[in-house]
C-alpha cells in the first residue's frame, strides 16, 4: 500500500491547513469518507465542511473542536476524532499535529449501540489505520524526512509516507 499526504486547499487558509491521505494514487481517505456517507448524512457533512473552512481561514483547529487522544497508544496524543453535534452520528478520524495542521483520515457511522468506536468494525479499521499513519509520520519526523514549515501551516519534506 502506498500512502501520500495531500493538501486540501479547499479548507486550508492562514489559520490552519488540512491534509488528506492518498491511498495507492487512486483515492484519498477524506473524499472516500464523504462518498460513503453523503447519502445518509449530507446535512451533517455540509456543516462539517463549513466548519473546516472556518478553522482554516478564521479560528484555527483548536482543541475544543475535536475529541482528543483517541489512540490506543497512550504516547500518541495526536489521534483525534471529529464528530457531528448534537447527534454524534458519525466519527471522522484525524491526526491533530497542532492547532494549525490536521491530517484527515477515514471514518464512518457510529451506531448508538456501539458505545465505543472500537466496537464497530468499520470504525475500528479506520481508527487502526489512522494510528498507523500517525506513528509513521512520527517516525518520518524523527528521521528528518518530514517536517513542518516555519509558520507551522504545511508539511515539508517527502510527503510520501509509505
Amino acid at each position: 500500500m502506498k500512502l501520500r499526504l495531500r493538501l486540501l486547499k479547499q479548507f486550508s487558509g492562514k489559520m490552519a491547513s488540512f491534509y488528506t491521505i492518498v491511498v495507492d494514487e487512486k483515492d484519498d481517505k477524506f473524499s472516500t469518507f464523504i462518498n460513503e456517507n453523503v447519502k445518509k448524512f449530507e446535512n451533517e457533512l455540509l456543516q462539517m465542511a463549513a466548519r473546516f473552512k472556518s478553522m482554516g481561514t478564521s479560528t484555527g483547529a483548536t482543541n475544543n473542536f475535536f475529541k482528543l487522544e483517541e489512540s490506543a497508544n497512550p504516547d500518541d496524543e495526536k489521534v483525534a476524532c471529529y464528530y457531528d453535534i448534537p447527534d454524534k452520528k458519525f466519527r471522522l478520524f484525524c491526526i491533530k499535529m497542532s492547532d494549525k495542521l490536521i491530517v484527515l483520515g477515514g471514518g464512518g457511522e457510529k451506531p448508538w449501540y456501539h458505545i465505543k468506536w472500537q466496537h464497530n468494525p468499520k470504525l475500528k479499521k479506520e481508527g487502526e489505520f489512522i494510528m498507523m499513519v500517525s506513528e509513521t509520520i512520527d517516525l518520518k519526523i524523527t528521521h528528518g524526512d518530514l517536517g513542518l514549515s516555519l509558520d507551522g501551516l504545511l508539511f515539508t519534506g517527502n510527503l510520501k509516507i509509505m
Partner: protein
Amino acid sequence: MNNVNVAESIDNIGDSIIDGLLNKVTPEIQDEANYKMKLAAKIYAAMKKKGWNKNELAKQMNKRNSVITRWLSGYHNFECDTIREIEKKLNINLLNLEEDVVDIEQLPSLKAASTYNLPPIDYEGGKVVEFWESKAQKTLKATNG
C-alpha cells in the same frame, strides 16, 4: 533529506467529491458556521487565558461537562441568558467577534518547525502562494530582507 515538495501535495485526487460537497454549502450555512465557530473559539481562548479547563468552567457555571463540550463545539445555539452569564464569568464581550480572539497553540510533541532544523519553503516557487500568505511568512521575509 528530500527536496521540499509542498507543491507535490496539491493534485486533484478526490477534489471533485470535495468540491461537489462544498458547492452545496450555501453562503448562509457558511456564515452561520463562521459565527458559531468564532463564538466557541472566543470562549475557549478566554478559558485558557484564565487557566480554566472544561471542568472548571462547568463548575463555575454550574453545568455538566457535556454542556461545556457542546458550547465549545462550534455548533451550539446560545440563548441570551447563557451568553450574558458566560460573559460575566469569563470577563469578555462575547458578541464582539471582530476582536482577535484566537489563541493558537501547538501540541507539545510538535512545538515549532525550527525544532527540526528544516529549510524554509520557497513559497514563491510553489503553487501554495496562490492560497495564502500568512503573517509569519511576511515576518520571515522581512527578517531575511
